[in-house]
């Protein structure tokens, strides 16, 4: 018998904070590292208090419980501290490092993909690198070209890295717990537009397994695989379509690496149609990867061409009307579904 845990309504941001607190309580080797994740280091009146608790307040309150030796403010030195997190993970700690915006990966990519992600392989299976790198993604706040990208496709491409893209508060909590407990290098992509979104979140310390998709809405007519915030856009589109008699099944892969191939293929086998919705850029992307998966292994089940609804092949623009054009909208998603019905 499965006993459902009691739930409370929380924001995505609070759910992440709760997962960090649980992980730090259960394992003394879990440390947090990042720029201003507490803030105010060496300020006399903030010895055991935070100035910011992260630029968005996600880590607020943790330094009070765990102290500055476990909630480590770093200088603005991404190669330095992400590399230190990788080195610490290889030698016995379980660090959770915060790369403030994923767009900053250029400053530290060597330490992620050339070092941490390859150690186990290059060393013949004799190393572990249990580091989680939390990072913000997503357009929608007019943060412009260097603070708004998604880029999880880049990391999904790379062996040795796991990629987690939660879309709800409950998923954020459960997946972050699993990410931190995981013995591999995990990139955990938090959509900044979702930080204030609310949902029911289970109490307790249960993790959600990495590699298990979630069917966010059941339907028989078309499969919409949507990633991160695009799950919400797809669910809105699905309601519009339902009023027209089209029942969409909305699948949230929740992790892009590993990817739950079977849930996607089974859904397409039922609906015979696939639309992938992805806010990342469209070339060599998670969307094209999922399309290729179904074209390769589910071609015979398809009754229509696979369609992708993605951001354009541009950086993220600043001006609000341009940014709104950039992000896939429920209207665009619904239009594309109608095209293939």
């Amino acid at each position, binding site marked *: 018998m499965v006993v459902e845990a009691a739930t409370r309504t929380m924001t995505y941001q609070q759910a992440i904070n709760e997962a960090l607190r649980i992980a730090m309580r259960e394992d003394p*080797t879990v*440390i947090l590292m990042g720029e201003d994740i507490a803030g105010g280091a060496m300020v006399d009146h903030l010895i055991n208090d935070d100035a910011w608790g992260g630029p968005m307040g996600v880590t607020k309150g943790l330094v009070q419980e765990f102290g500055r*030796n*476990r909630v*480590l403010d*770093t*200088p603005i*030195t991404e*190669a*330095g*501290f*992400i*590399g*230190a*997190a*990788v*080195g*610490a*993970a*290889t*030698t*016995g*700690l379980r*660090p959770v490092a915060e790369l403030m915006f994923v767009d900053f990966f250029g400053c530290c990519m*060597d*330490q992620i993909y*050339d*070092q941490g992600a*390859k*150690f*186990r*392989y*290059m*060393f*013949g*299976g*004799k*190393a*572990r690198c249990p580091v989680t790198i939390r990072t913000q993604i997503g357009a929608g706040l007019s943060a412009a070209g260097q603070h708004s990208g998604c880029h999880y496709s880049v990391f999904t491409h790379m*062996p*040795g890295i*796991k990629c987690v893209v939660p879309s709800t508060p409950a998923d954020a909590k459960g997946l972050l717990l699993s990410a931190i407990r*995981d*013995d*591999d290098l995990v990139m955990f992509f938090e959509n900044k537009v979702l930080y204030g979104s609310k949902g029911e979140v289970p109490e307790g310390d249960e993790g959600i397994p990495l*590699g298990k998709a979630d069917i966010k809405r059941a339907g028989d007519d078309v499969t919409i695989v949507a990633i991160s915030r695009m799950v919400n856009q797809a669910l809105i589109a699905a309601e519009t379509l339902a009023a027209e008699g089209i029942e969409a099944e909305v699948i949230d892969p929740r992790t892009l690496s*590993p990817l739950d191939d079977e849930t996607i293929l089974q859904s397409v086998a039922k609906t015979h149609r696939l639309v992938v919705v992805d806010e990342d850029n469209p070339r060599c992307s998670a969307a094209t990867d999922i399309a290729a998966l179904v074209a390769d292994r589910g071609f015979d089940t398809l009754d229509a061409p696979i369609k992708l609804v993605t951001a354009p092949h541009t950086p993220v623009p600043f001006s609000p009307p341009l940014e709104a054009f950039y992000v896939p909208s429920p209207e665009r998603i619904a239009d594309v579904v109608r095209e293939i019905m």
Partner: protein
Amino acid sequence: MSAATAGAIDLDRETLLSMYERMVQIRTFEDQAGTNFAAGLIPGFVHLYAGEEAVAVGICSQLSDNDYITSTHRGHGHCIAKGVDISGRVAELMGKSTGVCKGKGGSMHIADVEKGMLGANGIVGGGIPLACGAALTAKTLNTGGVAVCFFGDGASNQGTFHEGLNLAAIWNLPVIFVCENNGYAEATPVRYHCSASDIANRAGSYEIPGVVVDGLDVFAVYEAAREAIARARRGDGPTLLEAKTYRFYGHFQGDQVTYRTADELDSYKKRDAIVSLRNALIERDIASEEELSAIDSRVSAALDQSWVDAKAAPFPEPEETLTDVYVSY
């Protein structure tokens, strides 16, 4: 001061002979690797450490498995000095399944985390933040360990060098940054590529000790490292140690080394650290010529056997390509 006349001669006979043997192991390993690379037995790229033995041995002889090192593309010497199995290393160079990394790393990625060896590294400067992380582990878990970070003169121009030194300084990490300045970053002389006359001067920017040492004098290296390691273990933070050294081979095997003169190479070979140590041990009646020659012979014979074994060992099965990417997936 001539080589091998500095302090550290107070070391006991066993330690001194062990250091001599390690240095000879490295030299013999590298000479044989050079020969066997030319004979086509080693795939890929090989960067030989011969000439720089005093640095790895002078430092690693003071470390235990509880201490970590990070290394470079020129990492064979660090591995041997840190105690990584030599036969497994020979097999690794050949890409055999009996290699320490099952043939999946090769010369540039040999590692043995259990021995505290966090990997040779194909990225110049790539190991510097990693060493800070290993030191952070030692500090956080209070293991008493230190991290020694080996890198070359070329790496001192990478951002990771500056980020790592700053991070270690502000967090007071037990790390010893060891710049092996062999005069050349690939084919480019240090006088061109580096703004500082001594790379150790760069420590000043981070307000940590910066020490220049003769990297061809194992005792001088030992002494300088002793202080830096003690400082790190005391909790007094990092040191930048610059060992002025020289590589007897080119940047990689196949390098025609047109960027330096034969006279320059000869001048350094006249100061060969192993010869200097050998002479010092004999002059001071610590060991006889015969005893040292017996060590030389024993090392050669053991390595010869390692090559025989490695040649006979199987290559990994093709399916092995697909393993060890993740702990679980």
